[in-house]
């Protein structure tokens, strides 16, 4: 059960891919320890930009981000693992020219524990990867790639994982498996910040949710309430947006 201590805190975030052209306009949100928080919204809402901004991959022009009260702004993406943060990109989230073992070995460079121990732990946790440890990443199915990407994030023993549309392009069965896996990860005490197009499925496993549109906060609350709120459909269809012109 998640506790009440705020873990990741994002406040008044203004960020984008080019300086002076922000995609996010003053977005605020937080994730408590052990929670699954989902960010949903229509296409172009800025969901992926938000997660990339937290991961240090886009230009942040204003606002603050803290992880357990430690400032993360300006920290290089390659150093965020030391703060207990892992990120799983939406696409191209594994190295297709490297084998499964090599992908894991590379990700294990961030581990505090012996890399061999962590690689063995991941192969135990995901038997499907163990069977294909010598297969190049490019030879895996969409679902297997997603599992490998999540294993690469987990191998560093993070305290929070950011996931950008982990079910994109997957079959309904594979999507369900990935979401179940996310539920298990959170059950082990790792916080998860999820960006998803597949709102209904994602909200089904989440504790809380934020809705973004036009790069701004629109709604937030417990996932169950969001799921049942008729205003959500309106926001998706563009009928009711805070701050829209």
């Amino acid at each position, binding site marked *: 059960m998640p506790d009440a201590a705020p873990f990741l805190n994002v406040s008044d975030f203004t960020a984008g891919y080019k300086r002076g052209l922000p995609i996010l306009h003053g977005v605020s949100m937080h994730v408590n320890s052990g929670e699954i928080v989902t960010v949903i919204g229509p296409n172009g809402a800025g969901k992926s930009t938000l997660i990339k901004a937290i991961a240090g991959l886009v230009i942040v022009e204003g606002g603050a981000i803290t992880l357990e009260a430690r400032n993360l702004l300006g920290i290089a993406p390659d150093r965020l693992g030391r703060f207990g943060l892992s990120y799983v990109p939406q696409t191209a989230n594994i*190295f297709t020219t490297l084998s499964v073992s090599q992908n894991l070995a590379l990700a294990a460079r961030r581990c505090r524990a012996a890399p061999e121990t962590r690689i063995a732990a991941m192969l135990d946790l995901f038997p499907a990867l163990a069977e294909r440890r010598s297969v190049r990443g490019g030879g895996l199915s969409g679902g297997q790639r997603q599992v490998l990407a999540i294993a690469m994030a987990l191998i560093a023993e993070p305290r929070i994982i950011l996931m950008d549309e982990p079910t994109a392009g997957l079959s309904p069965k594979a999507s369900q498996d990935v979401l179940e896996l996310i539920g298990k990860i959170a059950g082990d005490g790792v916080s998860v910040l999820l960006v998803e197009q597949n709102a209904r499925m994602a909200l089904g496993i989440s504790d809380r949710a934020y809705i973004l549109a036009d790069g701004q906060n629109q709604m937030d609350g417990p996932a169950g309430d969001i799921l049942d709120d008729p205003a959500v459909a309106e926001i998706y269809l563009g009928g009711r947006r805070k701050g829209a012109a």
Partner: protein
Amino acid sequence: MIQALFDGVLVGSILSLGAIGLTLVMHILRFANFSHAELLSVGAYCALTFDAVLSGIAPPLANLIGPFSMSAALALSTLAAAILTGFTAVLIDRLVFRRLRDTAGPLTMVFASFGVALIMRNLIALVFGLRTERFTDAISFATMVSSDPLLLIKPDQVAILLIAVAAMAALHLLLTRTTLGFALRAVAENPTLAQVNGIALPSMIRLTWIIGGGLAAIAGVLYGIDNQLSPVMGRDLVLSLFAAAIVGGLGSVTGAMLGGFIVGLASSFAILLLPAGYKPAIPFLVILATLYIRPNGLFGEAR
């Protein structure tokens, strides 16, 4: 025929060494570096200088090794030149390319590399003069390995081939057996994902230049042993190096190795069929023929 085959393989091994660094830089830093071939000249002239100094300080090191026209001084000088050339490449990156990477596009980088090539070439000419140099004249009097009077293979040429293959094998092991090699390949494939997985891009970029510069220096020394050193040797080799990298497929180290041998063999065999004046056109013909069949080169992937 066998002579053309051997000559092609020999030249190919040197081109392969040079092309590996070129393809790594092109793939990781996303620009065609026309100054890369000048690193062969830098390496060769560094080794020439170190060799002269070492031979002067410790004359026994200048003694030739067995049937070869190489000395221990030259071997040590080659190692020192590889290290120095690697760091020269890092310095050039810091002074020129890194500044442009942050602010300019790939085309600006290409034009800058032309400028860097001109500066490097003329600096070498300024210091060493325009005349050609040799590491040693002993190679001219070397006893042939083969007893067949029509097959001219010198012991030094066998050594050149073995050294080049050993350097390529060492790099192959680094890239396929070590986490550092995985990291380099990861950066080449997806720099953003590499960063997310804890790989610091600046240190990988430095390593790329050091490896590329080091191999270029070894290639330059090997070329100088079999031929001669001149400030324009980089200019003479640049198109063949690009041909090797493009034929092999940009970003593929295996491709660059194979591409070097293909270009070397094509140039060598072409002399049997065409007037020598057509030799400079051979790399272009090889590029055209390969890209016609495989648009991304032999081992390249669509990007």
